[in-house]
């Protein structure tokens, strides 16, 4: 959850998004096995590693790339069915996020379906993990935080809860 992902579209266009939820869909066989009572270790391992269980991802669209330029607004078209979703690498992820003024964050903050604070914290942690040594000093972090604080400063409770979580995260980096 919170990972940046991308769908490669037509004519070198790309749609970027953030994984907001991962859901293991209901599986009748698991229900049967659990109701059986005693479950052997090999049965457990067989179900975990040898069966394809349906897993569904929810992705918040953050922006797109067209004609070589990144945009932090929603694309004009949704990705076509059966197009492949892949995780972003560090260089591509940094290039998307740092193009402009982190205005894609509004897409995360404005949705109400998923826990926005946890998503923001996970996203910032991914950016921090991506940061290679040559990008020091970490200039993106205060810029991003300034945008977040400005966006949420009229909502005291929401902002301070987010800053509590980010303070914990910052301490884990040291």
């Amino acid at each position: 959850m919170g990972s940046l992902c991308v769908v490669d579209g037509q004519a070198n266009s790309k749609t970027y998004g953030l994984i907001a939820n991962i859901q293991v869909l209901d599986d009748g066989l698991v229900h049967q096995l659990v109701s059986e009572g005693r479950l052997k270790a090999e049965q457990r391992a067989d179900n975990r590693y040898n069966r394809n269980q349906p897993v569904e991802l929810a992705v918040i669209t953050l922006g797109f790339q067209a004609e070589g330029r990144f945009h932090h607004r929603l694309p004009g078209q949704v990705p076509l069915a059966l197009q492949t979703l892949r995780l972003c690498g560090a260089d591509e992820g940094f290039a998307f996020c740092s193009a402009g003024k982190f205005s894609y964050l509004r897409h995360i903050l404005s949705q109400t379906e998923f826990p926005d604070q946890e998503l923001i914290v996970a996203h910032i942690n991914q950016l921090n993990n991506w940061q290679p040594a040559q990008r020091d000093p970490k200039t993106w972090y205060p810029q991003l935080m300034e945008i977040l604080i400005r966006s949420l400063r009229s909502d005291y409770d929401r902002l301070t809860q987010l800053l509590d979580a980010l303070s914990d995260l910052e301490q884990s980096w040291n």
Partner: protein
Amino acid sequence: MELSTQDSIGYVSGGGLEANLQVRLTVPVGEVQEGAFVVTDSQNWRFYCLVTDIQLQALDERYAGEVSGARFTPQLAALLDKATLFPTLAVMPVLMMEIGPDLNAPEYEAWRALNPEDSQPSTVKTLPEHHSKVRLAAAEDISKIFGAENGKEIFRIGKTREQGHPICLNLKNFVQRSAGIFRYTGSGKSFWHA
């Protein structure tokens, strides 16, 4: 931090002719003192103002009530304070003067043709626009109001408290009307008059 008189110290954020103007400070509160002369240019006018009050404001009182550094990391606390806590000035506009368009603006020539004489400060009849930048008055601004010392009829009687700009008195104008000198006992009224 030493402020130049060209540096903006804040911008107009509200106010009125009867009430003072509100100026949101963009420099540390200690950089400006009550009683300072400040200037703001808006459209074709320059406004000469006096700082009458300094206030500490918060976007939400809860931001001011809790020391953020005790709860968040120093970096986050500093960013939060910067975005939510801010000082403001109450500024009394006293005089205004038409200065015309910017010297480099294409419309300046036409304006100058209509206004060949330099205008003089007059009482305030309008207000600067929102977000007009405010700066500390320079020596030239003070001399525009009080006159520049010339060793004859215009002589120096003191200086501004903040920046030490000379304040002069035009004797010719002074004696044209009745005048009084008010100050507490022992402050030098008789000496000054003599």
